[in-house]
């Protein structure tokens, strides 16, 4: 396949058998054009339990990945391999860029501090208030020194330096000390040593042969791929069904606009054991949540899916 053809396909970065998507435009395209939602897994570092604000990377279900690869929409990139060892020239160039960024930040910090100082000292009110504040501090420090002297004469000589430090330790503004932020880009594409071209796979088989992808590897996984593809081709959007006791939630359109009508369970083969209790449990849960339960049976020989919908009978 030509490099041009490859370039028009969305790259999925594969690491440890999971496919990640870091590009926001590609995420939007997958959703709006190809009806694949995935799950955003980026969260806030200090509040990782929250799920109101989620960001990149997008993680795709293995069934979604298989469907997209087979339809020629995405390619799989073996990300660890794509990150080659940088040579000396590349490291020096990268280092120079980083140093320039740090210098830029420090200059900006100093300018900001100078501006703050200027605006602060210009205001007469501010000057007056600062004088009063410093006077109050001095008196408080004096009193503290006296108290300490009264409490414990042995340590009285140490008290003065302590209080002096106390007043000094309360800065009135952020004095620039040469600190800067190191930012790590989400995409590695800007690194000179990142070369995905030799680590790109456009078929599931080639990715499996290279050892970077395993799905589908057994009947259950093939069944899931088959059912997912069948539902997707009928125009449904799929989400995770764990909250409703099934494999997928099936939406008639974008999940942001619609409620799902169905909870789907994948049945590996038409002869797989199905207990009546499962039918009752699935049906009951569906009815309680205003959904139907879908039993989706995969026939591995005919490569077809057949559907059965379960609903409470409302009599008996």
């Amino acid at each position, binding site marked *: 396949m030509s490099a041009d053809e490859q370039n028009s396909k969305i790259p999925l970065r594969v690491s440890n058998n999971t496919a990640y998507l870091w590009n926001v435009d590609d995420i939007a395209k997958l959703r709006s054009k190809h009806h694949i939602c995935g799950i955003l897994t980026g969260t806030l570092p200090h509040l990782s339990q929250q799920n109101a604000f989620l960001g990149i990377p997008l993680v795709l279900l293995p069934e979604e990945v298989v469907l997209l690869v087979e339809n020629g929409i995405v390619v799989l990139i073996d990300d660890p391999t794509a990150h080659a060892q940088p040579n000396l020239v590349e490291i020096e160039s990268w280092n120079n860029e980083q140093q320039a960024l740090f210098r830029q930040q420090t200059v900006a910090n100093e300018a900001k501090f100078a501006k703050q100082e200027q605006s602060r000292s210009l205001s007469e009110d501010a000057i007056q208030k600062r004088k009063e504040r410093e006077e109050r501090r001095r008196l408080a420090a004096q009193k503290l020194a006296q108290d300490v002297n009264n409490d414990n004469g042995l340590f009285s000589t140490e008290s003065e330096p302590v209080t002096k430090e106390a007043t000094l330790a309360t800065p009135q503004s952020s004095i620039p000390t040469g600190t800067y932020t190191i930012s790590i880009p989400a995409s590695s594409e800007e690194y000179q040593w990142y070369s995905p071209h030799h680590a790109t796979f456009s078929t599931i088989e080639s990715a499996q042969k290279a050892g970077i992808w395993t799905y589908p590897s057994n009947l259950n996984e093939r069944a899931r791929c088959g059912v997912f593809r069948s539902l997707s081709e009928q125009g449904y959007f799929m989400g995770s069904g764990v909250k409703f006791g099934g494999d997928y939630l099936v939406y008639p359109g974008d999940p942001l606009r619609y409620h799902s009508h169905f909870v789907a369970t994948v049945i590996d083969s038409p002869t797989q054991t199905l*207990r*009546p209790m499962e039918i009752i449990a699935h049906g009951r849960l569906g009815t309680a949540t205003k959904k139907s339960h879908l039993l989706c049976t995969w026939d591995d020989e005919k490569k077809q899916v*057949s559907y059965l919908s*379960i609903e409470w009978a409302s009599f*008996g």
Partner: protein
Amino acid sequence: MNQHPSYTVLEPLMAKYPRASGSLFQAYNDIVYAQEWCDVEVVDLEKCARGAIKGRKKSSNVDMHIVPCTLSEKLSTQLLNDAFVSLGEPSEIYLATTSEDASIVYYKISTGIVKPPM
């Protein structure tokens, strides 16, 4: 059981499919005496190794089909699809699950993707 009025209707199928006779007996009696359906008949579902029940609710003239089973049985989607075929491809069947404490619960099963009622 032989003295029970339902026995005459069910005897041939109960002899042919002894394992399914308990659930057939329980489901048939519920349909006839508790649900009070009309024109109730039994149907031989050879592919499913059991008998099925056909009838209609008092207030309707649409035929409904009941496939009985017990909680301890192992079914499969193959069996359910065979039931549809053997019953002449109705749009839905009702799986009647019986248990040893005489409870019975009916669930509607339809072929294809059928939206839930509003």
